C-alpha cells in the first residue's frame, strides 16, 4: 500500500477539522475574451482553477474549472466560459453596443466601443496606501500601483507609527511615490492624514497586502465621472491566491468579494437597509470624493486596525456616507486582489476582528445617530442570530467543512466588540491631545 503523496496535505502543516486531507490549492486566473484562451499547465499541485472571465477588462463571471492531468486545456476553459459566462457576455455586449446604436451583430466585439462614451474629464485621483511594518507585502503592492494607467494620478504611502525605516527606504527607491509618516498609531490617523495630504479630487484607499488591477484607478475615475452626486465608490476584492486551507476558509466565511453586479445606493428617508454596511465592500478597495469629508467629517480614529476595536472604520464611513444622504456605488469593475492570511491562527484572529469591528461600528453609529438606536439594535440582534448563533447551531446538527472554532472566534469578537468602542474612544482622545501638544 502506498503512502499518501499529496503535497498539499504535507505542506499545509495544519489539519483543520476533517477538511484537511482533501485540500488542494486553487489556482486563480484571469481570462480575457479578446485574447486567445491559454492552455494552463504546471498546475500539478492544484485541484481546480478559479477563472475570472473578463471582456474589455470587465469581470463578467467567476468560473471554477477542475485541473486535469496537471493543467486546464484551453478547450475545457472555453467550454466553461461558454456555459457559465455566456449570459453575461450577451449582457455586456448589448450594453456596449447601445453606446454606438448598432445592436445587430451577435458576436464578440474585439474593441470596446463604449470606451469612447465615458464622461470627460476624468477627475484627478490620489491613491493612498496606509501601512505599518509590512514592507515585504508593500513592495508587491507598490509595484502594482506604479503600473496603474490613469491620466492624473498621485501615489501616496502613509507610514503608520513604523518601528523601523524600512518602508521609508523602500518608498524612496521608487519614483513618483510620496511618503508621509503618521506617528499616531491607528489606521484612521493614517487615513485622515491621507485626506489632508492628498491633492486628488478622488481619494482611493487600498491596503498593503493588496495588488491592484491595472485598470483599477481608471474604473474608479470613470465611475466618479458619471455624476457629481457620487461620493463613494467601493470595488471588487478577489483573493490574490488560494494556496493554503486558511485562505480558502476565509473565502468560505464570506471573503471580501461582494459580487460582480454593480449597485447604486442611496438611502431614502426612514430606510435602514444600509446598516449592515459590510455588503457595500471593504477598506481594501474604497474611494471617496475628497470633498465629502468636509461635509460629513473624517474617519473616526477610535475605529480601525491598530486600535482597541481593530477595524470597522470602513463600515462606519460607508454607513455615514449613505446616512447623510449621499450616493455610494459598488463598482465591481474596479478590482483589487487581497492576500488572505496564510496560516490558521492569523485567520482566526482576523475573523475575531471582523466580529469585533462590526459591533464596534454599530455601537459608534448608534451613539452618533440616536434616532437609529432601535434599528441598529434590531440589526445587531438579527445579524448575531443569522451569522453567529445559527451557524454555530448548524455546526452541531451536521458535520461542517467550516471549523467550529472559527465560528466561535467571530462570535466572541462580536460580543467583545460591544464593549470596545468606549475604550478606543478614550485612547483616541489621549492621542488627539498628545498630537496637539
Amino acid at each position, binding site marked *: *500500500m*502506498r*503512502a*499518501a*503523496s*499529496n503535497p498539499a496535505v504535507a505542506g499545509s502543516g495544519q489539519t483543520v477539522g*476533517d*477538511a*484537511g*486531507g*482533501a*485540500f*488542494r490549492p486553487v489556482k486563480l486566473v484571469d481570462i480575457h475574451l479578446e485574447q*486567445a*484562451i491559454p*492552455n494552463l499547465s504546471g*498546475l500539478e499541485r492544484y*485541484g*481546480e482553477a478559479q477563472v475570472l472571465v473578463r471582456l474589455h477588462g470587465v469581470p463578467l463571471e467567476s468560473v471554477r474549472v*477542475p*485541473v486535469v*492531468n496537471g493543467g486546464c*486545456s*484551453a*478547450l*475545457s476553459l*472555453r467550454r466553461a*466560459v*461558454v456555459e457559465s459566462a*455566456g449570459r453575461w*457576455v*450577451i449582457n455586456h455586449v*448589448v*450594453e*456596449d453596443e*447601445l*453606446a454606438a*446604436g*448598432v*445592436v*445587430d451583430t*451577435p*458576436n*464578440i466585439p474585439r474593441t470596446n466601443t*463604449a470606451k469612447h*462614451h465615458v*464622461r470627460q474629464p476624468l477627475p484627478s485621483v490620489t491613491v493612498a496606501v496606509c501601512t505599518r511594518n509590512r514592507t515585504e507585502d508593500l513592495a508587491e503592492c507598490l509595484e502594482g500601483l506604479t503600473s496603474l494607467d490613469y491620466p492624473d494620478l498621485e501615489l501616496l504611502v502613509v507610514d503608520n507609527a513604523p518601528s523601523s525605516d524600512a518602508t521609508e527606504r523602500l518608498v524612496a527607491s521608487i519614483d513618483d511615490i510620496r511618503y508621509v509618516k503618521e506617528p499616531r498609531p491607528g489606521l484612521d490617523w493614517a487615513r485622515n492624514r491621507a485626506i489632508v495630504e492628498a491633492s486628488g479630487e478622488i481619494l482611493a484607499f487600498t491596503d498593503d497586502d493588496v495588488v491592484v488591477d491595472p485598470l483599477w484607478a481608471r474604473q474608479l475615475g*470613470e465611475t466618479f465621472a*458619471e*455624476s*457629481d*452626486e457620487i461620493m463613494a465608490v467601493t470595488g471588487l476584492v478577489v483573493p490574490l491566491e488560494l494556496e493554503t486551507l486558511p485562505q480558502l476558509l476565509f473565502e468560505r466565511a464570506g471573503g471580501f468579494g461582494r459580487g460582480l453586479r454593480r449597485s*447604486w445606493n442611496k438611502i*431614502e428617508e426612514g430606510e435602514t437597509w444600509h446598516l449592515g454596511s459590510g455588503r457595500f465592500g471593504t477598506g481594501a478597495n474604497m474611494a471617496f470624493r475628497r470633498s465629502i469629508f468636509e461635509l460629513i467629517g473624517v474617519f473616526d480614529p477610535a475605529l480601525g486596525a491598530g486600535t482597541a476595536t481593530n477595524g470597522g472604520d470602513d463600515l462606519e464611513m460607508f454607513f455615514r456616507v449613505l446616512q447623510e444622504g449621499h*450616493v455610494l456605488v459598488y463598482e465591481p469593475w474596479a478590482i483589487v486582489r487581497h492576500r488572505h492570511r496564510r496560516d490558521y491562527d492569523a485567520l482566526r484572529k482576523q475573523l475575531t476582528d471582523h466580529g469585533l469591528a462590526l459591533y464596534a461600528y454599530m455601537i459608534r453609529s448608534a451613539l452618533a445617530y440616536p434616532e437609529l438606536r432601535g434599528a441598529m439594535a434590531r440589526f445587531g440582534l438579527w445579524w448575531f442570530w443569522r451569522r453567529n448563533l445559527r451557524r454555530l447551531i448548524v455546526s452541531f*446538527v*451536521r*458535520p*461542517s*467543512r467550516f471549523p467550529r472554532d472559527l465560528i466561535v472566534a467571530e462570535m466572541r469578537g462580536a460580543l467583545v466588540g460591544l464593549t470596545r468602542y468606549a475604550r478606543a474612544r478614550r485612547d483616541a482622545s489621549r492621542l488627539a491631545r498628545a498630537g496637539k501638544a
Partner: protein
Amino acid sequence: MTGGRVAVRTVDIRAPVGDLTDLGEYDRVRIYTLSEGEVLGFAEIATWGDSVSSRRIRAALSDALDIKILAAGSGMSEDKVVSLFTNALERDLTLEDGDWDDEPSPLVDSVSVSIVVATLDRPDDLRHCLTNLRSQDTNRQVEIVVVDNNPSSGAARTVLKDFPGVVLVEESRRGLAYARNAGILAAGGDLVVMTDDDVTAPPDWLEKLVFPFARHDVAVVTGNVLPLELETQAQRLFEIYGGLGRGFERKEADAAWFQRSRRVVPTWRLGASANAAFRSSLFTDPGVGLMLEALGPGMPSGVGEDTYLFYKVLKAGYTIVYEPSAYVWHRHRSNMDGLRRQLFDYSKGHVAYHLTTLLRDRDLRVLVYLGFRLPLGHARRIAARLRGRSQYPLRLSLLELKGNVTGPAALWRSLQRVKREGTSSQRPNNRVPD
C-alpha cells in the same frame, strides 16, 4: 423607493444612447426602449441631480432587456439569437496553440490499478469474473486481488491455480468489509477498483471507470450496475425496488453537496462498491480510512459499508463522480427467498448506516430522517400500493419495515462482533505467497 415624481423618456436602440438631462425635479426616470417603432420594454432608475449618464442607462437597459434588444436589433427570435450568439462565442474565442487538443484528456497510463474481488464459495462465478477481468482493454498496469472470505473451503485457491499472477488474500473473519479491507491493504496500485464476483464487465469498463481520475479533485468514481437478466419475478421486483444502477446521467457530489442538505446525505444514490474505484491514498487519510467492519454483507447489519465510506469521503472534502458509461452487468438473486433476504438486509443496513453517521460523526440530521421521513416514505409506498398505483408488493414493504426496526439491534451485534474479532488494520497482511 416607489414614491416621488417619475420622468418618462424613450431611447431608440438604433441611435447612440446619450445622457439624459433636465431631470432635476424628478426622483426617478422610466426609460421606454424602442426599436423601429416597437416598444420592447422599460427600465426605471433613480435620478440624483440633473442628469443620468449614458453608461448607467445602458447598464440598466441591458440588465432588463438585453436579449430582447439583441433580438430586435438583429431581427431574429430570442431563442435564435441566443443560440447564434452562443455559437459565435464558441467560434470567436480563439485558443492558444498547443498539443492539448486531445479532449477530453485521458488518465495517463502510468497510473496503476488494483482490482479487488471478494468471493465467498462461488468458484464458478469467480472463474467467470476473473476471465472477464483478464480481458479488459487497457494499457496500464493492472493487479487483480482476490479475497477469499472462507479460506477453509479452499474453493478460491483451486480456481486461482488457473489464473497465474492473480493475488490471493485470505480473510477468515466473515464480512464483506473485512474482505474488502484485506484486499485494500494488499493492493499496490495507485487506484483501487472494487467489484463483485457475480458481475460481468464489458471490455472498456475499466478505462471508463478510471477516466475521471484525470481530474485532480476526484477521489472516487462509481459506475452503473445493470441487470444481466430479468428472467424471474424476484429479479424484476429487485429492479422495481431500485436495483443497483443509479441512472444514466453523469453526476458528482462534493463537500458542498454533503453539507448543504438539511436532510440526511443520500450517499446510496452515488452507487455501490460492486462497481467503484478509489484513490488508494484515501485509505491512509485519517479522515477516511478503511471500510467500517461492522457494516456490510456478512454482518448482522447487512449492508452499508460502501455508503458509509462514501460518507466519510465527502465529509473529508473529496469529490465523488458517478460515471454511468462505466457499467457492469449483475446477476440478481433469482428466487424470492434470496430477494427477501436481500431486501431485509438492505433495510437493516440502511438504518445501521444512518445510526453510524449519528454515533461516529454526530450527524443529527439522522434523527429527523429515522424518526419521521423514513416511516413516512414507507407509509406513502404502502398507500400507493393500496390505491393500485404501485407494483411493489405489500409483503416486501412490511419486510422492509421489519428490517428497519431490527436495524439498531443488528448494528449492536455487528459492533460486538468486531470488538471480538478486531479491526482490519490489526491484522495487516493476509496475502498468500504464490
